[in-house]
């Protein structure tokens, strides 16, 4: 031991006795904001979280987080219209993150590695009947099973999958993928009974001693149109065309086909027909901006040589031609006839003007409140006007996408679970939206050009042959790593590093950070330099 001089010589790190936290007038706190992707996702996927793990290469962890909200990632990675990407904050920087392709990669990874869902840790003994094995029903069944309930699905069609099987062409969703993801749900103990259409829901519930029922019926009936037509005109509906292609792999149809409609189904039909050698022309009464179909799908369709007649209605059909009337949009955006006509050579017409739910069984339910084409449900609990009967998917909404169906299925399961526990499900309050202005974009790197080009191809490949063009692991990680982690910690250590007072404590991987208020002087550098906008300075209560 040295003989230290008084006062002039000091022992090391003795400043720790000086608690500079008392200087503070503002204190940093961690805030969790809702990333726009998550906010947008109809299935409520915690995208930022699963990208976080995907970026690390921990695919299973990522998949498990993903499947907390959505049991069908491999399917969704293909068929979801990924509106999340349209809201992605990265779009302000360069291009939005290819969330969908990473989801698909994770889904495929799980299939490839035989990842299974965990069975519930304990059984509740409650029985639930789910009607329809489409995305809503499967989602609801999966979530209910996770709660420990026993679930039985009754499906009218020959096979489970609903519109995923009978409404989506195989080039968008190979059936082995669908089968694998359905099997994973049945492996949890969910039973699916196919080929039976329940006519009397009340009786079924009562006889089967179900504690609750979820109506998961899809919109399986194509809407018709009143088109004056000759006898010989070949008019088909979209679902039957798609169903036939699904079942047989092809369809006998003329070369010149007109697809009538502007939704996703119209595009699916057109592109499917294109693949079997036809020359489809889409006729739509509004313009491109008003089109309901997914823009990427539409781009792909055009790229594949499919022609579109915008602002057109079919006023008359004959054997080999259609009489088309030109339309204009009025000030409300509604198409109005112009009285101008032209002729479109066409051997057949496929009507893709929307689908409806088969309401025959529903109409027998007394006191079931309906609105237009769907069942009225409580927005939070998803319960219909009848106690114990819930609804999800096409039957309960006009937003008839697979993603919506999955989200609604999940919500309905939560509603049922609360109902069975004697309470009412309340949706948790959403965090504030993570806005791009809250973030510190300087920190995010640009993609090197070569990698980006490679990715352009990869990102678009999922519109065609996925087996060949699916994302490589490299690209998936690459894409996951582009996530800005909006409003949520990505553990970049900035707060920990930039604190001039070493007053941020790093808790270790996955645990984030905490502030040491003994020393934090409240300068705010951590908040300023947090790339994600995860730190907020709030006034001290002095």
């Amino acid at each position, binding site marked *: 031991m040295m003989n230290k001089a008084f*006062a*002039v010589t*000091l*022992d*090391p*790190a*003795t*400043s*720790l*006795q*000086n*608690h*500079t936290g008392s*200087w503070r007038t503002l204190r940093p706190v961690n805030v969790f904001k809702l990333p726009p992707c998550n906010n947008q996702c109809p299935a409520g996927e915690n995208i930022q979280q699963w990208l976080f793990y995907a*970026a*690390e*290469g921990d695919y299973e962890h990522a998949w498990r987080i993903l499947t907390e909200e959505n049991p069908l990632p491999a399917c969704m990675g293909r068929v979801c219209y990924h509106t999340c990407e349209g809201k992605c904050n990265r779009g302000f920087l360069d291009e939005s993150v290819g969330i969908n392709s990473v989801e698909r990669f994770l889904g495929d990874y799980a299939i490839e590695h035989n990842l299974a869902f965990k069975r519930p840790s304990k059984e509740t003994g409650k029985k639930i009947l789910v009607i329809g094995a489409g995305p809503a029903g499967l989602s609801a069944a999966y979530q209910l099973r996770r709660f420990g309930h026993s679930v039985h699905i009754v499906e009218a069609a020959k096979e489970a999958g609903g519109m995923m099987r009978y409404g989506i062409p195989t080039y968008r969703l190979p059936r082995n993928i669908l089968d694998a993801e359905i099997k994973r749900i049945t492996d949890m103990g969910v039973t699916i009974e196919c080929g039976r259409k329940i006519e009397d829901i009340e009786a079924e519930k009562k006889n089967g001693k179900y504690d609750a029922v979820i109506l998961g019926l899809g919109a399986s009936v194509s809407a018709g149109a009143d088109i004056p037509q000759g006898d010989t005109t070949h008019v088909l509906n979209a679902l039957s065309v798609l169903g036939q292609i699904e079942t047989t792999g092809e369809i006998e149809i003329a070369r010149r086909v007109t697809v009538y409609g502007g939704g996703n189904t119209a595009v699916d039909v057109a592109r499917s027909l294109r693949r079997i050698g036809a020359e489809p022309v889409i006729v739509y009464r509004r313009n491109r901006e008003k089109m309901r179909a997914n823009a990427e799908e539409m781009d792909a369709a055009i790229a594949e040589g499919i022609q579109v007649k915008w602002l057109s209605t079919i006023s008359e059909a004959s054997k080999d031609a259609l009489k088309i009337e030109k339309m204009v949009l009025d000030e409300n955006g509604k198409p109005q006839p112009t009285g101008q006509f032209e002729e479109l050579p066409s051997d057949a017409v496929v009507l893709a003007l929307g689908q409806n739910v088969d309401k025959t069984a529903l109409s027998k339910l007394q006191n079931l409140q309906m609105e237009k084409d769907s069942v009225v449900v409580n927005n939070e609990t998803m319960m219909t006007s009848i106690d114990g009967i819930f609804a999800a998917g096409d039957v309960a909404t006009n937003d008839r996408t697979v993603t919506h169906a999955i989200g609604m299925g999940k919500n309905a399961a939560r509603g049922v679970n609360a109902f069975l526990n004697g309470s009412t499900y309340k949706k948790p309050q959403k965090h504030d939206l993570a806005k791009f202005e809250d973030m510190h974009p*300087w*920190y*995010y*790197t640009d993609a*090197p050009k070569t*990698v980006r080009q490679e990715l352009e191809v990869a990102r678009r490949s999922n519109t065609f042959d996925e087996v060949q063009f699916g994302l490589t*692991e*490299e690209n998936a*990680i*690459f894409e996951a*790593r*582009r*996530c*800005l*982690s909006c409003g949520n910690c*990505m*553990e*970049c*250590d*900035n707060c*920990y*590093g*930039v*604190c*001039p*007072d*070493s007053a941020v404590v*790093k808790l*270790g*991987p996955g645990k984030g950070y905490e502030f*040491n208020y*003994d*020393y934090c*002087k*409240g*300068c*705010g*550098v951590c*908040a*300023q*330099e947090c*790339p994600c906008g995860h730190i907020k*300075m709030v006034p001290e209560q002095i």
Partner: protein
Amino acid sequence: MLEQIKFYQTGSNTVGNRLLNPAMRTIQASTDRPNGLISGHRACQGCGEALGARYAIDAALKATNGQLMVVNATGCLEVFSTPYPESAWKLPWVHSLFGNAAAVGSGLAAAAQVLAKRNGDANAPRIIAQGGDGGTTDIGFGALSGMFDRNDDVLYICYDNEAYMNTGVQRSSATPPSARTATTQLVGDHPGADWGKGKDLPLIAMAHGIPYVATATVADLRDLENKVTKAMSFHGARYIQILVPCPLGWGLASNSTVSAARMAMETGFFPVYEAEYGKITSVRKIRQKQPVLNYLKMQRRYAHLTGKKADPNVVARLQALCDANIKNFGLLGDDEPNAPVAIQAYERSQAV
């Protein structure tokens, strides 16, 4: 696979990056970082110097495996870190005077080497001498130049906040033109610091032909750590000047320390580069070029250049200064710097 993917969420821009291979992570990101300058010091809120000092000293501690001793010139850093009875330093540290840190460093290095030799230790502790820009570019300049001349085994770090902050923000020879200080006030026809004055100490250091000279800022931690680490791989005299914004002296929001330093780099106002034996070997390129006005706007010391009465000619001159830096140091794209090499540089490079 993970390591091969060169594209990261935040690349090397953030302090840590869990996605980087551990060997590539910053020292500051580590939970067991040395914290050579620990909490409880009395620096102002958002002090750039406290931050820069911890960054640099921690990196040097790592590079020397803890065999490091520090000499500190009088100044803010000294005053806020060691007021009796508390020291914020965890490593051997000494303060003597304002203008003599480099020379005390020389003496300490000599002693360390002699003692190691006598005790049969293979490696003597390494020495860092450090001070602010006043202690470096002004009052300690002679001692520093002498240390460079002798090529003593000392790394001198100048924490450059562009004025005498400890005494209340007076002009130093590192104060940029037109900046307000207590001795270059915003009055008269030419408010702020005079044009045509000041020294460029990194270039002067390079002219000594010493093994290593670098500039860095607290806004690029990885660059800073790399430079300190690299500096410690050389023996002989080395110099690093780190831009450390001073919220008080610059009239900067206390949360903007790092942002201001970044802006200084991205405008070209503060060129960041390194040189070995008098020759520039690398330049930190501007990532997102900014007009100087964006830098000036952050700081009240330039309030006279951003308000209604602002003289656009002065802003233009400052922009020209940035443009000259960009050109001379090759701060953009693939441009290459071109500076003459100093005397004795070759000989020093040949010295063991």
